[in-house]
């Protein structure tokens, strides 16, 4: 059984259909990329998986349980965590408070101290700025904080929404290194990205979305530049 399974998912915003019969599987230990241009439906897919949006039809299963009717807090408690697009740091809270709020669920609270140490070990620049407000961090540091915060919830599956958005190539390289480390430690990862090349370099399987539909899927080795371009842009 896959760790995460999305089956025939249809999502509407009012009369407008955003996702059409999406099917997706993520196996334990994998890094799966979901690629697509702006407006392809990536964020809608993530919001639906995380319980922020509701699907009109279809099924989302996580660790063999249906989660498409659950509230976001219940889904987080089951071990599915999202690093949201644009970081969404709590700007009025300190770095420490931002990290600690990541361990809000009763499951994560028990190991909050150890997880805080692990997060600060992974993202050393945060250690020196632990008492500063989230808003005072650079874009890269904020992304580190967002990832650290998600790790604090002790996830089994971690989803990154546009991890490289608006960041310098050097910072993005560091973040991808961290993603790789996180995966090597046993975490299952879903990367939702526009940066096709970099994303395919770390992924073991990829889905390409276009206008709310999966237009291509396969292992990175099986995807040629031509087929990806066609699926991505519809050229």
């Amino acid at each position, binding site marked *: 059984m896959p760790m995460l399974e999305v089956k025939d998912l249809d999502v509407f915003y009012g009369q407008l259909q955003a996702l059409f019969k999406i099917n997706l599987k993520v196996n334990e230990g994998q890094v799966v990329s979901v690629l697509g241009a702006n407006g392809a439906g990536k964020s809608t897919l993530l919001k639906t998986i995380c319980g922020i949006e509701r699907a009109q039809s279809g099924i989302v299963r996580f660790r063999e349980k249906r989660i498409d009717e659950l509230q976001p*807090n219940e889904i987080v*408690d089951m071990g599915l965590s999202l690093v949201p697009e644009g970081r969404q740091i*709590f700007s009025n809270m300190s770095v420490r408070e931002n990290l600690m709020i990541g361990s*809000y669920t009763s499951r994560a*609270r028990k190991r909050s101290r150890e997880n805080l140490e692990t997060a600060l070990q992974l993202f050393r620049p945060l250690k020196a700025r632990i008492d500063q407000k989230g808003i005072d961090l650079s874009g890269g540091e904020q992304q580190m904080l967002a990832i650290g915060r998600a790790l604090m919830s002790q996830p089994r599956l971690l989803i990154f929404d546009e991890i490289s958005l608006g960041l310098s190539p050097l910072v993005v390289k560091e973040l991808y290194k961290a993603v790789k480390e996180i995966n090597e430690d046993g975490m299952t990862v879903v990367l939702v990205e526009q940066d096709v090349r970099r994303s395919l370099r770390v992924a073991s399987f990829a889905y390409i979305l276009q206008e709310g539909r999966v237009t291509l899927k396969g292992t990175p080795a099986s995807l040629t530049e031509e087929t990806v371009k066609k699926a991505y842009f519809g050229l």
Partner: protein
Amino acid sequence: MTEYLEPLINGILLGGLYGVVGIGLSMVFGIMRQVNLAHGEFMILSCYFSLVALHLLGLHPLLTLVFVPPFMFFIGYLIQISLFNRVMQKGMEPFLMISFGLSIILQNALLLIFTPDARSLKTALAIKSVNVFGYLHIPLIHIVNFTVGILVLLFLHQFMKRTYLGWAITAAAENETTAKLMGINAKKVYACTMGIAAVTAAISGILVGMTFTFYPHSGTQYLIIAFGVVIIGGLGSLPGTFIGGLILGVSQLFGGRILGPGFQLLSGYMILLIVLTVRPQGILGGR
């Protein structure tokens, strides 16, 4: 000079009480972006709970601070869960209407049960005063009010900074969707916020009941004070609410001393108008 020292000190002490009067209203606005028009009734309801406990158990009014505020927490929590949470996503108007309705219901229920007679939580503290420098007489109850007020604000500050619920409240206030992604149940957090606001209303209500007389319809009077405090200090800011309380208290007593007792309220709200003109978001309020 000495004639102004007394209103200054008494104004500061009164301001500490005003700070606690306003804090619940400020929290509900800062966190939920809603205005609870029943805040004053929560205070007066607590006065009557305390009064009943006083008569049944013969306790000192200050001792009722031990169990009336926790009881008010559950009332606030239940009201938020059963009424306000249903309209949280529908803008400010439904919340205003429900809280207005609730304030009328509470006022009339109190009127029915306790009659319109003036009551007070009788205590010897209200008639004792402390002599400072040999010529200043500071009512002991004002010192008690100020001390409790400061303790409440310090406790709330530490609570917001050091506990999971405090962090969850801050997070939900800033970004509800992201807060949900942290595993936070926003509806429960809002219920706890209303519960805490009711606790502060209960504490300020009991202090008010020990200091002044109250009637079933006194809530409106304290709601207006709470509005004044949070508008001066800045909606949603804990330290701002305290500063707002001090400014309102001092300006009321100074106005009373300089212009006459009839000008107490007017001078307080003149300061409010000046703050609104110069700094519409309040002294410590964000834009």
